[in-house]
Structures are given as structure tokens and as C-alpha cells.
């Protein structure tokens, strides 16, 4: 565990050297950092909406939309839900459930030929 501590006005503040440590708690970002992340998310949402009106062919805008969706998802989970700064066990718990869900339902949808072209 790469932490050190300082006592300020009777309160103890922890300083982390990097993501993931044994206590399961982390500082995360500053309030201004969270605002910046929110601005990035808002811009990505704006790009998504603009793409849906762009008239680009499906093989262009659909991958772009899916990439933006994944980026927004990972950004919220990493920064707002603090997974980037928390114990890695939480990351395993969440992403194992998520990946299991994606695999199971992609397999189920494939049996109905949902991904077949045309």
C-alpha cells in the first residue's frame, strides 16, 4: 500500500501515490476535476446527437456512436464511481458482471440472427 498521512487541524488526510490500495478508499479528483470530467461527458453527448443527425452511412456513424458510448461509460465508472482510485477487487466485481452480461446476451441475440447483415 503506497500511502502516507498528515495530521491537519485534528483531521487525518491520506495521500495516495497511485490507483488501488488496500483500504478501499481513495481521494478521487478535486471538485474542479469532476466539473471538467462532466464537461467532457457533455461534449461527447453533443457529438453523439450531432452524429445521429449527420446523415453519415451506418457503417460510419454506428461504430462512432458505440465508441463514444463506451468512452462515456468508462469515464463515469472510472472517475465518478471512483473505480480508478479504489481497490481493484471492486473493479473485478463490477466488470466481471458486466462482461458476463454482454457475452451471455450477445450469444442469445446471435441465436436469433440479430447481428446478421441485411
Amino acid at each position: 500500500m503506497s500511502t502516507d498521512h498528515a495530521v491537519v487541524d485534528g483531521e487525518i488526510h491520506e495521500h495516495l501515490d497511485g490507483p488501488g490500495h488496500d483500504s478501499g478508499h481513495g481521494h478521487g479528483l478535486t471538485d474542479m476535476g469532476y466539473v471538467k470530467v462532466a464537461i467532457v461527458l457533455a461534449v461527447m453527448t453533443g457529438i453523439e446527437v450531432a452524429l445521429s443527425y449527420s446523415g453519415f452511412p451506418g457503417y460510419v456513424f454506428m461504430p462512432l456512436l458505440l465508441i463514444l458510448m463506451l468512452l462515456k461509460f468508462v469515464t463515469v465508472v472510472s472517475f465518478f464511481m471512483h473505480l480508478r482510485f479504489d481497490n481493484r477487487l471492486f473493479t473485478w466485481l463490477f466488470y466481471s458482471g458486466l462482461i458476463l452480461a454482454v457475452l451471455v446476451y450477445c450469444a442469445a441475440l446471435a441465436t436469433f440472427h440479430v447481428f446478421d447483415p441485411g
Partner: protein
Amino acid sequence: MADVTTPESQPDTTERIDLGVEPDIHGTVTTAAGDGHGAWHVDDGHGHHTSTGLSNNKLAMWMFLGSECLLFGGLISTYMLYRGRHEGSPSPDQLYAIPLTSVSSFVLLMSSLTMVLAVSAAQRHDDRNTTTWLTVTALLGATFVGAQVFEFTEFVHEGLGFTTNLFGSSFYTLTGFHGIHVTVGIILLMALVGMINRSKVPGNKAEVVEMIGLYWHFVDIVWIIIFTLVYLIPS
């Protein structure tokens, strides 16, 4: 290893440093003097043994969210399967009002910002800002639910009921389940504001706010997926 949290009202953590333990920003104290088979996690003096040294509440919340992925995965898959089955009603492309949904998506995204600011304030033991940001989050959530109710009403007027066709059933089930999750989140937020104002939050207050925050952010990331797959990608 042992993991001990001291109550906020008793800032005696400096004494515990002298005993060779390591407190964190929540007053959580960790020591390497454990028996090698687990750790102690203590909230307000009432401890419990954990085999991981992590808060059981937080661990349970992440497991719950992992299982929720399976629930929404099933609902989204069902919608993907049936979105083309809209006999007897307008098609999704004709029904969806992207500008309205975009605004409500933006509102929900900003509610995640206010929620994380509430968690940040709670970790600083700033009750006033915590309750303010929690209340703003609940109001933004209520705005989102209001927009969803308006959207549903419009769709019913257009001729798409819950039992009209498979598209309608899967659409209302998916977005309705999400709306119910948002509503539950709003109730949790308002209950938490009331408990903070009455100083009746059990255990570690910052952790309780963080738990509800995790639930709220999960609701937000589910909407990120729904917004793209349901609304922006045409059938």
C-alpha cells in the same frame, strides 16, 4: 491486517497513529497486526470482521451493481430483438423525439456531477454542501423522470401502448424499469437528506453517501447505453 473506523465526533485518530495503525481520509484505521486471516472494519465503534479488509457494505453494493448489469442486459437485449416488431403503430424513428431525450440525457449526466460533488462534500464532513448537492441531484433526477412521463404520454397519444406490439412492450419495459430505478434513487436521496439534517445517519456518513452515489451513477451509465442503442441508432 485490521481496519478500524473511528466516529467523526471523536477525532482521536492521532492517538491511534501512535499505536501503529494507519488512518485514512474517512477515519478508517488499518493495522498490520492482524492474524493474517482478515481485518476489522469498525463504524462508530461497532466493528465487524472482514476477510478482505474492505467495507462489506461497499463490496455488497458493487456485487449488486454487477448483478444489475445482468438485469438491464436482459432488458436491452429483448428490446434489440423486438424493436423492429412495430406492426400497428408508428416506427421508433417516427416516435422518438431526440431533442427532448438529448436534454433529459444531459440532465441525468449533470446529476451525476452533482452526486459526486455531494460525495466529495461528505468526505470533507461538510454537511451543508452535502445536503445541497444531494437535493440538486434529486431535483435533476425528478426532471428526468418528468421528461420520461411526458414522453410516454406522447407515445400513448401516438398509438403506442404497452400491449400494442412487441416493440412497445419491450420499449416500455426497458425504459420503465430504468425510470423506476431513477425514482428509487430520488427517494433514497431525499431520505438521506432528511437523515443528515436530523443527524441520524447510521455508521460512516461519507460511506453511506458514497453507496447511494454508486447506485445513482449506475443508473446514469445504464441510460448512457439506452440513449445510444435505443434512441440514436435507428432500427
